[in-house]
């Protein structure tokens, strides 16, 4: 049991320390695809270091929410890593404390505080970005639920550790249309939820077009660093859910030796690298959608998820 707690902490540390690198590699890959040199893959670490050493400026309009929100947003993905398989294929100490719905709830909780803080600061762009990102999230939420319930239905459980074994039981399951559609829907909502193209442009700072960036404009110093780091961890956690629970639960440690768990880190990193290639390809080959076309995009994701759910009894 002590070992399981140690592994749990190791999982959290992995996400905490590797999330900026994941971000850095993604940015570098995108720049490379566009025939540019791009910043070093370690740049996100330098950015965080710099921000942590800067003074913080607080809005005179702000309340305690503005100071508290970065911590909540930073902690949310870390809490989720206790519930999902990051390195091990077997459930760890905290695995049964919450299921996939709880993981979604924790992530939304962090986003909720960030949205409140954006309004709290009194900046005009904050509420605008908040209302937009709430629009996207409110459309993403039902799709998340449908995807979760479909996979839970197949596995008879909502615990991510149990679900992940489900799709690789047989090749017929892995290649079934249900699985294909679920993965497609989940990938589409990951892009929407982490503010990537085609829903939002993470590198754009044009005030009238941005969605996610406008919420964090008011943060400075340590708060800005925490929000940035939290965002990086959130996208890494969602990528890990797609990889380790839905798509490819290979390479995870099955034994309880420390060496097996440590070996899982590079294996998971390889899978993540492959995923980042796909993300970079999507990011560079599509354009950002207009605000009122996001609805079309998310409806496609919704329809795909619902059809996957209906197809399940037929094709499994």
């Amino acid at each position, binding site marked *: 049991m002590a070992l399981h707690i140690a592994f749990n902490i190791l999982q959290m540390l992995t996400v905490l320390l590797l999330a900026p690198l994941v971000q850095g590699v993604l940015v570098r890959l995108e720049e490379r695809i566009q025939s540019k040199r791009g910043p070093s893959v370690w740049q996100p670490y330098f950015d965080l270091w710099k921000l942590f050493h800067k003074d913080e400026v607080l809005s005179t309009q702000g309340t305690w929410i503005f100071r508290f929100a970065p911590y909540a947003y930073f902690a949310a993905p870390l809490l989720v890593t206790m519930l999902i398989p990051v390195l091990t294929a077997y459930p760890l100490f905290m695995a049964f404390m919450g299921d996939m719905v709880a993981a979604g709830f924790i992530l939304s909780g962090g986003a909720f505080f960030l949205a409140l803080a954006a309004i709290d600061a009194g900046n005009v762009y904050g509420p605008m970005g908040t209302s937009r990102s709430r629009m996207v999230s409110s459309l993403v939420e039902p799709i998340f639920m449908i995807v979760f319930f479909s996979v839970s239905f197949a596995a008879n459980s909502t615990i991510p550790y149990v679900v992940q074994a489900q799709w690789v039981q047989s090749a*017929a399951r892995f290649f079934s*249309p249900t699985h*294909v559609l679920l993965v497609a829907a989940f990938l589409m909502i990951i892009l929407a939820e982490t503010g990537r193209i085609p829903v939002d442009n993470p590198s754009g700072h044009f005030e009238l077009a941005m969605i996610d960036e406008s919420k964090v404009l008011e943060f400075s110093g340590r708060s800005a660093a925490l929000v940035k780091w939290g965002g990086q961890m959130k996208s890494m956690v969602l990528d890990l859910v797609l990889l380790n629970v839905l798509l490819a639960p290979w390479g995870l440690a099955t034994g309880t030796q420390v060496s097996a768990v440590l070996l899982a880190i590079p294996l998971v990193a390889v899978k993540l690298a492959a995923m980042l290639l796909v993300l970079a390809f999507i990011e560079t080959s599509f354009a950002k959608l207009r605000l009122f076309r996001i609805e*079309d995009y998310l409806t*496609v994701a919704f329809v795909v998820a619902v059809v996957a759910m209906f197809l399940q009894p037929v094709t499994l």
Partner: protein
Amino acid sequence: MTGGFAANLLVDLDALVGGLFILSAFFLMAPRQAQGFLKHFVRQSFLLALSALLLGWLHGSVELLLVALITLLAKTLIIPGLLTRTLERELRSRREVELAVSVPASLLVAIVITVLAFVFVAPLLHGVGPTVDINLPIGFAVTLIGVYTLAVRREAVPQMLAVMAIDNGAFFAGIAIASSSAIVELAAGLEGVVVVLVVAILARTIAQHVGSTAVGDLTSLKEGTPS
């Protein structure tokens, strides 16, 4: 017949293609510009050819391999090529296609259509092979979605591509049921090319007279001689 492990793998891969095929039918409903519509159509046709290839390999049927080849040539090369040549300006225009029903609403209708298709086909699926299990309901659903897409587009090019998508759906179901009807599919494949050519020329004539291919606007008679 290919036996054992390889056969299982082919069946599984066909299921994968089936999943992507129905996904492509939903993507086909979303674009608002003719160009995007054509791109998705080409992808869908490619998946159809892939499925025919897999099934042909599985059953050791030369006819199905021929069907795959014809589909690949006609639908992913000749038809897009013809359209681009005859309707270049219309196809590349950034003008948005007029829709009778908004995209989200029609996608929600597509859910109902898909579910109905699976319900209707379910009684037919007793004791048939695993590939029919996949191809027949998905092909049927894609056919019906194609009919619906045809009904809500009010523009010549997307309408024509919707007709070809109906064709795709019907073929997808057909290749699993009968593995030796290459003559019919050969004829249909070539006919498709002719249909596209005729409609493309017609659409170009309409475009020259009216200024666009938005056939939804052609509801009233025009007085006088066309310029």
